[in-house]
């Protein structure tokens, strides 16, 4: 498996695309720093960008790489390599490449800015962690979509659709729902619904670090009790990990049953 991961990783690197992706985050983070010297503001802006771009790019690259490596996969299937290693290895290769790319691109400017000396180090770690988890989650979803759909246009369309759904539409419906049923006690529902959308979950993880003061004003102090504690934090992280594991096990399931 390690060989496959390494190969898939190297393949992405050779396409030089990763440099651009890293470069993009470098430029973005760097520019944010230049515009504002306030670390926490940079973190907020970066969070907005991350929650929106990481899932999109990861989805598209998951789809992309799956389609692009079909030939490669067929070659490997005749070699003495376990099937799951082939597919999971490819997936882990992309996901890790994306995660590292993101980590370097977003992390280097922060380190240069002396984050280690500031009190924001914890907020920053949560931000990076979320970005990494989202990279893993959404590249798995993309890879899965491509594995299921042989029609490439449909695969890509679905990926964009999934992104639109989770990044915008989901929250829209959620908001409407909350407004609609505002006569009912919704604190727990609100948290429950959030859990089903990894982007929301990641956002709240960061929010808990950044906007505690505002969140503390929330009725019923549900946040306090649920997410504000380290238990809640752990739970949120766990759910994110589940989000990453679920599509991966689907990939595994499907890959073990597919004919080539």
């Amino acid at each position, binding site marked *: 498996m390690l060989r496959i991961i390494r190969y898939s990783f190297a393949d992405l690197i050779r396409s030089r695309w990763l440099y651009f992706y890293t470069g993009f985050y470098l430029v973005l983070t760097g520019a944010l720093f230049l515009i504002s010297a306030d670390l926490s503001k940079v973190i907020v802006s970066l969070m907005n960008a991350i929650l929106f771009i990481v899932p999109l790019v990861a989805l598209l690259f998951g789809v992309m790489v799956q389609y692009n490596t079909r030939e490669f996969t067929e070659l490997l*299937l005749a070699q003495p390599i*376990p099937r799951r290693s082939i597919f999971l290895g490819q997936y882990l290769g992309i996901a890790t490449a994306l995660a590292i790319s993101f980590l370097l691109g977003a992390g280097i400017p922060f380190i240069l800015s002396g984050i280690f000396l500031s009190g924001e180090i914890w907020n920053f770690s949560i931000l990076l962690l979320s970005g990494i988890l989202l990279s893993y989650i959404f590249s798995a979803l993309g890879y899965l979509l491509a594995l299921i759909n042989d029609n490439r246009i449909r695969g890509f369309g679905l990926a964009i659709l999934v992104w639109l759904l989770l990044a915008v539409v989901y929250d829209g419906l959620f908001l409407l729902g909350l407004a609609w049923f505002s006569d009912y006690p919704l604190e727990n529902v609100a948290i429950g619904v959030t859990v089903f959308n990894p982007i929301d979950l990641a956002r709240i993880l960061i929010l808990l670090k950044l906007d505690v003061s505002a969140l503390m004003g929330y009725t019923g102090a549900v946040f306090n009790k649920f997410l504000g504690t380290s238990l809640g934090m752990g739970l949120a992280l766990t759910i994110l990990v589940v989000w990453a594991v679920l599509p991966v096990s689907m990939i595994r399931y499907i890959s073990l049953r597919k004919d080539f």
Partner: protein
Amino acid sequence: MIHLHHIHKSFGRLEVLRGVDLAFDRPGITAVLGPNGSGKSTLLKSILGMVLPDQGEIHFNGKPIDNLGQYRKDISYLPQIARFPENLRVRELIRMIESFRSQPSQSAELIHQFGLESVLDSQLGHLSGGTRQKVNLVLTLMYDTPVIILDEPTAGLDPVAMVKLKELIIQAREDGKILLITTHIMSLVEELADRVVFLLEGRIYFDGKPDELKQRVDEPNLEKAIANLLSGGHLTPIQPLDASSKPIKKMNGNVVQPQLKY
């Protein structure tokens, strides 16, 4: 070495293999013949675990084949339709496949034998049809494995390469390997095959020596013999349709009596 028990495989509503029992135990060259779409490639792929049968079992070296695929260390496989990552260079592809298999490889010698030195730095997408097939052959034959499975190995090869290939195949037989080859070129079958398996609509209609086949159809030319087999239309498979019943007799090399009506 390789035992297939009652293999069934459908793609959607299309039944491609309908109860195939086969055994390959003795060294030698078996030609798997049959018209287009009869299921030859599907059969070979299911030995490789690339196609997963709906029913039946495949044993390799006495053990059922599994998804871990370690048994594939002992098999070299040449796919019929070779799909390569088109951007890769030949050298990179060979090195890559080598890196996934920690067995000693004879790629250098094969590259020399097929005269591929000059294209090593070409992208696979830019190769000519025959050159592509040569690369495909190098990738397949570079390991010393007891089983070699070749699906249409001659496609697009020029006469010189063809001669080379035949030499390699004969050498492999002499080394005591088990070879499974599909081809539509009967002269090749005649030249090489120790055993012929004839597949039609997912069933085996003949399994025996080439001479036996000619005898049965009373036709000295193998090509015509096969054509006769097909056009005659009075065929009966040598295995029962009923999947639940045991195969009449365990196939073993070429001892089975084909039950052809003609």
